[in-house]
C-alpha cells in the first residue's frame, strides 16, 4: 500500500509542479536557515570537556568588597596574586591550578630567522592531569618542578612542528624570552573551544592555539608579564610586574577539580573560612561573598555563548515556523482541490485511515525533498557563515552526520506536522457531496 501511496503522491506532485516547487523551496529555506544557525549555536554552546565539566570548579573571592562588585553583586571574575598563591599553597582540592595568560617571544637558534611570538599560559603541574590534556610526547612537569621553579616547558604540536620538524623534542631546548627551557612534553592536538580554563581572557573562543605552558612560579620569578586582562580597583602602590603581584588587581584565572558533593561543600566552607579570616584580620571590611561555580555554570555566567548567536537561532526558528505555516496553507489548498478524487476513493470503500496515510505520505515526500534541498543549502550556509559571523565562531560550525540527520528529520517531521490539518480536512470530505457535484 505504501508504494502505491508513493506513486499517487508522485503523480499528484507532478500535476502541479509550480506549487510543489514552492513548497519544497519554502521547507528548504526554513530548514537551511535554522540548521545553519543551529550548527553555530551547537558549536558555541557545546561542553568543551563533557566527561569532567561537572567536576571542574572556578572559585571567586570577593577581595574588592561592595564598591568593586558589579550591579549584580558578583565578586571579580579573576584573582589577585596573593589569593591565588595562598589557595595553591593550601591545596584543598584534589587537583587545582592558578594560571595566567602569557605571550612570550621564542628566538630560533638559527640567527637568520626572525623571532616569533607565541601565546600560552603559566600554570601549575596539576593543570595537565586536571584537564586531561593529551600528550604526543613526554608529559607535564612534576610538583617538584613547580616548587623549584624549573626551566621546563610544554609546547604544542604546532610549535613542535615549527621548531623541531615534528620529531620527539623531549629533552631539547627552547629559548623563551631569552632564556633556555627544557621541553618536557609535546601536546597532541589540543584546542578546546571554548577555551574554558581561561574564558575571561580568551573571551571564550579563539582561532589561535596555546603554544607554550610554563611553570607558574617560574614565569613569575623571571618576570614574564601577564598578557591578559588586568583589572584594578585602585592604582597599585608599587610599579612593574612585581608591583602588580603585590596589588589587589585581578589577573589570574583559577580552576579546581572537586570529585563529589562532599568535596564541593568542603571547598566552599574553606573559601568562606578564608574570607572570614580575612575579615577578622581586617583585610576585608565585609562579610564573605564567594562563588564556587562548576564549569557549565561558569561558562553561562561569563556569557560565553554570544547573544548574537542566540538571536540568529531564534530568528531562524521563527523563519522555519513561518515556512511551516505557509506550507500548511499550500497543502490545504492542494489537498482540498482533490476533493473529488477523495470522494471517489471513499465511495469505493477506502476508510479514512487510508486517506490519512495517502496524504501524509505526500506531505512527507515534500518534506523529504525539502530536506534534501535544505541539506545542500545548509552546506552552503555553513561554508559561508564566516561571511556573517565572527571568524573565530564561524570556524567552529561543522556539517557532520548528526547535523545531516537532524536536517532531514526536522524537514520531514515538520512538513508532516504541517500536513496534519490539511490531511484531517481531506479525510473529512463527504463522498456524496463530491460525487453529486460531478
Amino acid at each position: 500500500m505504501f508504494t502505491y501511496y508513493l506513486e499517487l503522491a508522485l503523480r499528484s506532485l507532478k500535476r502541479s509542479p509550480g506549487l510543489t516547487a514552492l513548497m519544497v523551496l519554502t521547507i528548504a529555506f526554513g530548514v537551511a536557515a535554522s540548521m545553519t544557525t543551529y550548527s553555530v549555536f551547537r558549536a558555541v554552546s557545546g561542553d568543551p570537556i563533557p566527561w569532567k565539566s561537572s567536576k571542574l570548579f572556578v572559585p571567586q573571592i570577593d577581595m574588592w568588597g561592595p564598591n568593586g562588585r558589579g550591579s549584580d553583586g558578583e565578586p571579580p571574575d579573576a584573582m589577585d596574586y596573593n589569593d591565588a598563591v595562598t589557595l595553591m599553597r593550601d591545596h584543598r582540592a584534589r587537583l587545582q591550578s592558578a594560571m595566567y595568560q602569557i605571550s612570550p617571544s621564542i628566538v630560533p637558534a638559527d640567527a637568520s630567522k626572525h623571532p616569533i611570538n607565541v601565546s600560552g599560559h603559566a600554570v601549575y603541574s596539576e593543570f595537565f592531569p586536571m584537564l586531561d590534556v593529551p600528550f604526543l610526547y613526554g608529559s607535564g612537569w612534576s610538583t617538584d618542578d613547580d616548587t623549584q621553579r624549573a626551566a621546563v616547558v610544554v609546547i604544542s604540536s604546532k610549535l613542535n612542528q615549527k621548531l623541531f620538524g615534528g620529531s620527539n623534542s623531549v629533552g631539547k631546548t627552547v629559548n623563551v624570552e631569552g632564556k633556555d627551557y627544557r621541553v618536557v612534553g609535546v601536546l597532541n592536538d589540543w584546542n578546546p573551544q571554548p577555551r574554558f580554563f581561561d574564558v575571561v581572557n580568551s573571551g571564550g573562543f579563539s582561532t589561535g592555539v596555546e603554544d607554550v605552558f610554563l611553570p607558574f612560579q617560574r614565569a613569575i620569578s623571571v618576570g614574564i608579564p601577564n598578557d591578559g586582562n588586568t583589572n584594578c580597583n585602585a592604582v597599585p602602590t608599587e610599579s612593574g610586574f612585581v608591583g602588580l603581584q603585590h596589588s589587589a588587581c585581578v589577573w589570574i584565572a583559577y580552576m579546581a577539580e572537586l570529585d563529589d558533593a562532599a568535596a564541593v561543600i568542603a571547598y566552599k566552607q574553606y573559601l568562606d573560612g578564608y574570607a572570614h579570616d580575612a575579615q577578622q584580620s581586617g583585610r576585608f571590611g565585609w562579610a564573605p561573598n564567594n562563588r564556587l561555580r562548576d564549569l557549565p555554570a561558569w561558562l553561562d555566567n561569563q556569557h560565553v555563548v554570544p547573544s548574537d548567536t542566540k538571536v540568529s537561532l531564534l530568528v531562524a526558528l521563527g523563519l522555519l515556523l513561518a515556512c511551516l505555516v505557509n506550507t500548511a496553507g499550500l497543502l490545504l489548498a492542494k489537498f482540498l482541490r482533490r476533493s473529488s478524487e477523495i470522494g471517489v476513493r471513499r465511495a469505493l470503500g477506502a476508510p479514512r485511515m487510508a486517506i490519512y496515510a495517502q496524504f501524509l505520505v505526500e506531505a512527507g515526500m515534500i518534506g523529504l525533498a525539502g530536506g534534501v534541498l535544505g541539506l545542500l543549502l545548509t552546506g552552503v550556509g555553513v561554508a559561508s557563515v564566516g561571511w556573517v559571523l565572527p571568524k573565530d565562531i564561524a570556524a567552529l560550525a561543522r556539517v557532520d552526520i548528526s547535523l545531516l540527520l537532524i536536517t532531514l528529520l526536522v524537514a520531514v517531521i515538520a512538513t508532516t506536522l504541517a500536513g496534519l490539518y490539511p490531511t484531517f480536512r481531506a479525510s473529512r470530505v463527504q463522498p456524496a457531496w463530491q460525487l453529486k457535484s460531478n
Partner: protein
Amino acid sequence: MHIKPILAALRRHKAGTVLIALQIALTLAIVCNALFIIHQRLAHLSEPTGVDEANLFVIENQWAGQTSNPQIDAQIRADLVALRQLPGVRDASPSNAYPLEGSGWDDFITLTPDQTEKTTDAAVYLGDEHLIDTLGLQLVAGRNFRADEVNSVGLHQYSVSPVVIVTRALAERLYPDGSALGKPLYAMTSTPSTIIGVVDRLQRQGIDAWSDSYAYQSMLWPQRLDMPRGIIYIVRAKPGQLAAAMREAPAALYTQNRMRIIDPKNGVLSFAQVRERAYDSDRGMAILMGIISVVLLAITAAGIVGLTSFWVGQRRRQIGIRRALGATRNDILNYFLTENLLIGAMGVLIGAVLALVINLWMIAHVEMSRLPLAYVLAGVVMLLLLGQGAVLAPALRASHVSPVEATRSV
C-alpha cells in the same frame, strides 16, 4: 464595497484564512525585529572614530629579547626617527592603543583627590608630541604636548603625567560650563593632571555596549610605553601613499633592529582593516537579518499567491454567476483585494502584538533596546502592501473569468 459577503465567504474558508493571517503575523513580528536589529547595527558601525582613517595604519611591534626599560626606550626613539624619515610617511607616534582596537585601557576619573565614587570613565591613549598630528585630531582649545613633557613609563608603572589632553566629550562631562582648560582631573590617583588641550573627537578603543555611556570620552597622556611585551606604532601616511608606506615601514623597522616580532599577517593593519575587524559581527548580523527578512517576505508573498490562486480556481463558477448578474471586472478585482486586506488586517494586528512580545523577550534575555513603534507601523504598511501586491495577479485572473462559466457544471 460590501464587506459582509466577503466575511461570509471567509467563514467558509476558516483554515486558509487563519493560516494566511498567522503567516502575515509571524512575518511582521520577525521582520520588524530584524529591521530594528539591522538599523541598530548599521548605526553602530557608522560611528566615526575622529581620526584620519584614510591615511592611517598601525604596527603591532613586539620585542624579542629586549627587557630593560632604557634599552627599549632607546629602540623606540630610534624606530620613530626611522619611521618619520620614510618618504611615504607624514608622521608617526608610539602608543598603547588605537580606536576600534577592541579591548583597551580605561581609568576612572574624579574631580577631587579624595572622591570615592568616580565622576566618569575615560579611555587612555599614550603617545608623544606627534600623537595628535599622527591621528589627525583637531585641537579645538589649548595646546599640544611639548617634547620635554613626554616621559617613558614601564610596564605597570603608574606615573601620572602633570598634563593631559582630553576630548571635547570628556571636557564637557567633567566641566559642563566649558571651563575645562587649565582645570585638574584625577585618574585613579591623588595626583592631579592639568587639562592643557581639548581635541574635537576621539573614539574609545572598545565599542562594547557597556561603554556607550562613555562614548568619545578619551584622554591623551604624553608617555611612551616601554613594555617588554611591545608597542604599537601609529603611522599616518602622506595622502595617496598608504600602500607604499605600509610596505616600507616594517622593512625599515627590521633594518633598524632584527630583534622584534611583527606578525606577517596581523602585524601591520591599515585602518580600513581595523574597522572591518571591529565591526565584523555587526555587519554580519545586519546581513543575516537582511537575508532572513527578504526570504521571509518572499515566502509570505508566494504563499498568498498560492492560496488565493486556489480560492480563485475554486470559485470560478461563483465568479461567473456574479459576472453574469452584472458585476464588472473591477468588482471582482476589488472583491479579492478587499478580502486580502481584511485577512491582512487581522494578521498585522496579531503580528504587531507578537513583534512587541518578541522584543520584550529579547530585552530580558539578550542586549536589546525597545522596539520603536515606528518600526511596527512601517512593518504593518509594508505587509499590507505586500499582501495587495501578491494578491493582484490571482485577482486579475479572477476578474477575467467569463460570465459563461456560470453555465458550466464544473
